[in-house]
């Protein structure tokens, strides 16, 4: 059997495989070390880093729902300086493509993160989380207003040579518009989707299950929504898309690739199995082998849609 080519080019990077970790679901990667060799990943996407450390939200922070889970971690993280001083040196020991997810509450926050982290060796690119409230604009998230999003991307673009991947929020009327705006602002790629806002109530205590009432829904429950958004966005933009939302298996990942994603991220699946990325990679390889396909790249956007059939 000829060796299957799992590599994909993405936003100027060449990835060994199209399978990455999703931000916030594998910490800074170090907790995965006992379970997998980070260099086998397409990329390691670490949890969102802010300028200052963040405490996160009070508990309870998570709740399981049917086919998914709600989380309100509150973007707890050690902050940019501790990341550079304590985490980055350890990650450099593992030869993996490293994408740092960054988050801010103002354009200046993002700029400081990009400026500081761009200088660091071992960081291959940024994933910009635009789901946080924009404090300057009355708390409306960067990711829910098209003009604000485009402005942020255009503002960050000149500050770094490294790839800027924008992680879009699904909580919008028109994901295609948001994708187009990010591209227009100069993004090198898009990640779709972040969690969907949801809640759940404990009928015995009459209290919400999460201390913050509303949290982000992830897991297989949201897969059809994520897949639809990837497919719609892929039809609009030229830049590569990283698909994420509810992927548990190689077949799930193949769905995203067929729908137009160039790579995929694995999030909630890590909580079932720390080696979820390896399981997904093996699943994709098995699928390719069964179908006699030599290179995973051939799957990207290869969905067969009879044009007369589109609704």
């Amino acid at each position: 059997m000829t060796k299957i080519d799992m590599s994909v080019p993405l936003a100027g990077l060449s990835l060994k495989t199209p399978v990455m970790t999703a931000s916030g679901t594998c910490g800074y990667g170090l907790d995965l070390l006992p379970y997998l060799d980070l260099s086998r990943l397409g990329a390691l996407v670490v949890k969102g880093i802010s300028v200052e450390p963040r405490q996160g939200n009070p508990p309870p922070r998570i709740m399981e729902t049917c086919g998914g889970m709600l989380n309100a971690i509150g973007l707890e993280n050690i902050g940019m300086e501790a990341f550079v001083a304590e985490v980055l040196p350890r990650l450099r020991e593992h030869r993996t493509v490293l994408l740092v997810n960054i988050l801010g509450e103002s354009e200046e926050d993002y700029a400081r993160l990009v400026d500081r982290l761009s200088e660091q060796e071992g960081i291959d690119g940024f994933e910009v989380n635009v789901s946080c409230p924009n404090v300057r604009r009355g708390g409306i998230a960067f990711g829910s207003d098209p003009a604000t999003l485009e402005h942020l991307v255009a503002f960050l673009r000149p500050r770094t040579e490294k790839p800027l991947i924008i992680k879009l929020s699904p909580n919008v009327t028109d994901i295609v518009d948001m994708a187009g705006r990010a591209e227009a602002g100069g993004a090198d790629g898009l990640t779709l989707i972040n969690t969907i806002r949801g809640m759940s109530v404990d009928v015995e205590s009459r209290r919400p299950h999460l201390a913050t009432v509303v949290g982000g829904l992830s897991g297989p429950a949201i897969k059809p929504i994520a897949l639809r958004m990837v497919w719609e966005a892929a039809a609009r933009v030229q830049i590569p898309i990283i698909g994420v939302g509810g992927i548990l298996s190689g077949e799930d990942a193949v769905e995203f690739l067929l729908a137009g994603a160039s790579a995929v991220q694995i999030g909630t699946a890590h909580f079932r199995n720390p080696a979820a990325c390896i399981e997904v990679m093996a699943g994709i390889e098995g699928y390719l082998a069964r179908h006699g396909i030599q290179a995973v790249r051939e799957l990207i956007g290869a969905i067969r849609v009879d044009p007369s059939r589109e609704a």
Partner: protein
Amino acid sequence: MTGNRRAALTAIVSNREIVPGTFLMAFEEPRLAAEVRPGQFLMLSIPAAHDPLLPRPFAVFNREGPRVEILYRRVGKGTGRLAGLKRGDSLRALGPLGNGFPLPAPSVASLVLAGGVGIASVHLLLLHLLKHQSVPTTLLYGARSHQEIIPLESLEAQGLRIHIATEDGLRGVKGTVAALLSTTPALWEDGAAASTEAFVCGPMAMLRAVVARLNRPGIRTHVSLESRMACGYGVCQGCAMPFKDKENPERVRYRKVCTDGPVFTADEIPWGKTEAS
């Protein structure tokens, strides 16, 4: 050790209701059985099922050779699914996880307090203490009803001093473990050396009551906490609970119950502020 650990895929050897609502499940997994230390836990899930989606945390109740035993109470969806498993059904087990109980020097007196299925988390510890301590070990064990009390004759045969409290009063003293502790202080003080290590596991109300009564000189109290967990190995931050900030004891700091715990010393916990879990 990079990269070679795996969540074990194993098969149920037995799974039966030993007292009403509480089950004892066994499977064989030599690595887990060999590695696990008292107070550590596993994340268990059913491989093919997506409902529930997330694994559930359980202490290792016992080990014998390659065999691992889990004692669990059926309380909801996940434990309901576990209770439906039969011999030969497959199970995924990740672990051992967590810090476990700090094991006392052989000459130190130990007092173990368990409420309800909290007995599961201290059972391996009891076995360890009975084997290694040169002084007697005491267990205060409470449950809602006499029917819920797990038989512990073999521990008693090994020298464990067991005192039981049940809320229905049909076995041991009528009341809670905390009541047992305060109404009969001689129980555990008689054998106690200058310093005692106390180990507690049970529902939050019991922990709170017990810890308040154990707060006296010479006793160091270790508490095994519970919290809703998604991953169990430190990546989701879902299990965080507030703990006293060492630098500023007036403030709280979130720490992970799964990897920083589940065992904490009682003085780390801001009892007034902690969420009931």
